[in-house]
């Protein structure tokens, strides 16, 4: 898909000789912290940007070939649409441009996400605007879905619905390119994951491999004085620190060892933290 793909903006190297191939029909997670070059990659795929050097092919064709976009559904990270359009206006306009009008699918997608397509974009909340963007991306049953931070701004129930939709499309044979800075999102959908950092691909692995290397932060609130010694030497624990009544742990891979060790103390609260990717993949990045 991408070969030695490089994009510079002035002196800033946004993407540095990226080599990446996505298999047809897979769900590929494209993971990296904000500013790593994920959106730049996507904008190159859609021909909004032109490579400084190297090349990209999308569904076997260069992105400059307009007809490729018949088969692409794009969900941008930040939804920006003319505020005077209604959802209906957007769907009609895009359907006409694509030459595919499927009212039944439009209605069923709107119903699934509880979207009223007669309201103007300008009157909609961020979450509802995102729904408009989701419906337009899936409307024409594309072969390739390019999803940039797809569930940011969606409430958990709708995130679930969205994940179901992606799984259905994947089962139908669509290829999914899922970009995110959140491991949990990618984890639920992707089979294979590429980790991007500062414009370079740090690794491409399958999800199990990634899970075994990902770190998480756990705080255990103990009844009584906390003692970190209980967790020292337990499988997976890379850091154990006690602070009055709380034990702070950093665990790599499975937390099974920690769960078993915790049975020896009285835990009354178990708090896990979303760790950002930088921290999560210390190993990979080193």
């Amino acid at each position, binding site marked *: 898909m991408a070969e030695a793909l490089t994009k510079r903006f002035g002196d800033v190297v946004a993407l540095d000789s990226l080599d990446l191939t996505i298999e047809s029909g897979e769900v590929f997670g494209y993971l990296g912290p904000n500013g790593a070059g994920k959106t730049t990659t996507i904008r190159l795929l859609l021909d909004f940007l*032109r490579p400084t050097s190297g090349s990209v092919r999308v569904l076997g064709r260069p992105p400059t070939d307009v007809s490729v*976009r018949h088969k*692409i559904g794009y969900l941008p990270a930040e939804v920006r*649409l003319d505020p005077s359009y209604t959802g209906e206006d957007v769907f009609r306009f*895009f359907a006409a441009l694509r030459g595919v009008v499927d009212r039944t699918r439009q209605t069923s997608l709107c119903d699934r996400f509880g979207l009223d397509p007669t309201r103007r974009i300008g009157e909609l909340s961020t979450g509802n605007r995102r729904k408009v963007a989701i419906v337009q991306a899936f409307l024409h049953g594309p072969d390739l879905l390019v999803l940039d931070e797809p569930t940011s701004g969606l409430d958990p129930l709708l995130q679930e619905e969205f994940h179901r939709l992606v799984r259905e499309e994947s089962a139908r044979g669509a290829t999914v390119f899922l970009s995110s800075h959140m491991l949990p999102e990618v984890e639920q959908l992707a089979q294979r994951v590429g980790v991007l950092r500062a414009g370079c691909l740090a690794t491409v692995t399958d999800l199990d491999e990634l899970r075994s290397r990902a770190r998480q932060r756990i705080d255990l609130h103990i009844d009584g004085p906390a003692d970190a010694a209980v967790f020292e030497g337990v499988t997976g624990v890379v850091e154990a620190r006690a602070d009055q009544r709380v034990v702070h742990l950093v665990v790599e891979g499975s937390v099974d060892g920690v769960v078993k060790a915790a049975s020896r103390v009285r835990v009354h609260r178990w708090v896990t933290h979303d760790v950002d990717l930088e921290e999560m993949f210390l190993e990979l990045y080193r």
Partner: protein
Amino acid sequence: MIVFGRFIRDRRRGLVGWSLGVVVAVASTLALFPTVKGQTSYNDLIDNLPRALRESMGLSAAVPFTSGPGYLQSRLFSTFLPILLLVFAIAAGARALGGAEEDGGLELVLANPVSRRHVLAGRYLGVVALVATLGAVALVALVVVGAPVGALDGVDRAGLLAAAVAVVGLALLHGTIAFVAGAVSGRRGPAVVAGAGVAVGGYLVQVLAASSPSLHAVGLLSPWQWLLARNMLATGPAWTALVLPVVVSAVLVVAGSTVFEQRDLR
């Protein structure tokens, strides 16, 4: 065609508002004509004005202010109508691509199977159609209100049509400059500045050139000079005023399209 249709639908409300404004402006100007018609004292007053000032008002000794052609030229065709249409054209041109890209609305459109060239062409034709429609509204208002008050007496019919087309041409040329600047920069601000800057600069050049015969050649660079060199209402169509804006606009759009197709979107 889809892009064009969508663009017109998006802008129709604005066009209706502007049309009403133009009709009111034209009608109220013409309503005053009977108070001026044939009043020779006005002519004496105007004859005493400095030549540069007189010419900047679109008046010449041969066509008195108190005649239909003189009144229409000085009150409508020399500044008022061109400026109204020009402001409309610059705003529409700047918004069509530069503004749309800056607001981010363009990106999702271009994620569809439609080329940048196609979107540019559709939206440019949209701007042309909007400005032409507003010009037509002004002309119709002028004829409908002007005939009963006698403002069309002595007006060359072909010249009137040509003058209206030439005003649209002037407005469109500046709308094109704004459109192309927007296509190149991807922003609204530079687009407006380019369109308005050329309009003001061109107007000053035309006024200066009219004030001194030695500067006449410089004046030929100004689109205003193309429009105002002759009173078409009295003397019939002037081809420079009709052809030059179209030629320059076409060259600009082709050049702008090439840049727009090759650059990165913002």
